[in-house]
């Protein structure tokens, strides 16, 4: 009997990964992105590209989501190159300048993406509780958790209002009446849902002794 109980007993101390590597990654990503933005020569841009690649390898980010974002580089390069040629006339130096500028903007974007795919929710939440004031951390974490639920409720509101005959389909947005219906029959109930949810969560948290005792505690306690 005891062995059976032991088998299904929830482990008393769940494994919590240490938080300092996550903090280090956050700092590194911020520094790398800032460095990429301010590296204004080709040598510095190359160095920053190298550092970003090292960062991605060290974080062991899955490569597929990163590869999916490569296409962002193309249209932006085209747009900036067009502007440069419009202003300075065609020439190899102009192309190289435009290429460097769009590479910089793109490189500044990569470390954050790598961080996002390399950070677990538990780590992010503990990091938020260490870095931010207690109420801010609680509010942001709660909002992140409950927004998917809210979005599902918005979807329900949308479907119900469509059945009631509100003009909410994408092609209705070409006329003024569609926008009126968006404001009155979709946005208004959605905002009321948000107000309602925030009042309920605030009351529930306070009844459970919200602000807690020590700073750095993750509330509700892990």
């Amino acid at each position: 009997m005891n062995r059976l109980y032991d088998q299904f007993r929830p482990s008393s101390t769940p494994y919590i990964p240490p938080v300092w590597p996550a903090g280090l990654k956050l700092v590194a990503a911020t520094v790398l992105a800032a460095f990429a933005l301010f590296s204004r020569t080709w040598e510095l841009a190359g160095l920053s590209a190298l550092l970003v690649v090292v960062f991605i390898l060290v974080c062991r980010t899955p490569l597929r989501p990163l590869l999916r974002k490569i296409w962002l580089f193309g249209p932006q390069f085209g747009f900036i190159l067009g502007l440069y040629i419009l202003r300075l006339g065609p020439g190899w130096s102009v192309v190289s300048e435009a290429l460097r500028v769009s590479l910089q903007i793109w490189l500044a974007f990569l470390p954050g993406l790598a961080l996002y795919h390399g950070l677990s929710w538990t780590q992010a939440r503990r990091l938020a509780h260490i870095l931010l004031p207690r109420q801010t951390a609680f509010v942001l974490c709660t909002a992140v958790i409950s927004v998917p639920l809210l979005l599902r409720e918005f979807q329900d509101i949308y479907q119900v209002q469509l059945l009631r005959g509100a003009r909410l389909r994408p092609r209705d947005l070409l006329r003024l009446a569609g926008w009126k219906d968006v404001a009155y029959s979709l946005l208004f109930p959605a905002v009321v849902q948000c107000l309602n949810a925030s009042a309920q969560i605030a009351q529930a948290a306070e009844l459970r002794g919200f602000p807690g005792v020590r700073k750095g505690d993750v509330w509700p306690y892990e």
Partner: protein
Amino acid sequence: MNKQHHALRNALFLGFCAVLLVSMKILFRWHLHIPGHSMLIVSFFLILARGVVPGKLSASTVGLWAGLMVVVLGLGKGGPLQMCKYVFPALFVDIGARLLPNWTHSLWTCALLGVGAGLGKTGANLLVDWAVGMETGVLFLHAGLKGLGAVIFSLLGSLLVPPVLTRLRAHRLL
């Protein structure tokens, strides 16, 4: 107790605004190829937050939180400077709301706040382009073109706020 309860409730509403702003921006990534179309969502949530939560800096709070989240989640191009793209419009909204008393009652003042938010976004674009070292003429052309789109869309977004606020007031929810 009551005061703290209200503070927590308002903070939660601002948090919802910030997270919804970011998630809506991801969900409705229309491939319109018009620069600045995301300002529709940004200016709507910023002005809504300022209208619903009484406080001198409520829009800035939403902007700051959304910017923090965008920097940590690695959305959008611009690294840490991405934060300015949310904080500048929010500051413009807050300052505008201070300068225009009773702005919630009129469509025109709301539209003015929307234009202010668009201008704030343009300022942030200028800053990012300057940081990467773009040539001055190209910089103004690039930021100006994007800024025009931002102003138009944020004007549209701000026009959605007054009907919602009117209804909320009619139901005594403000």
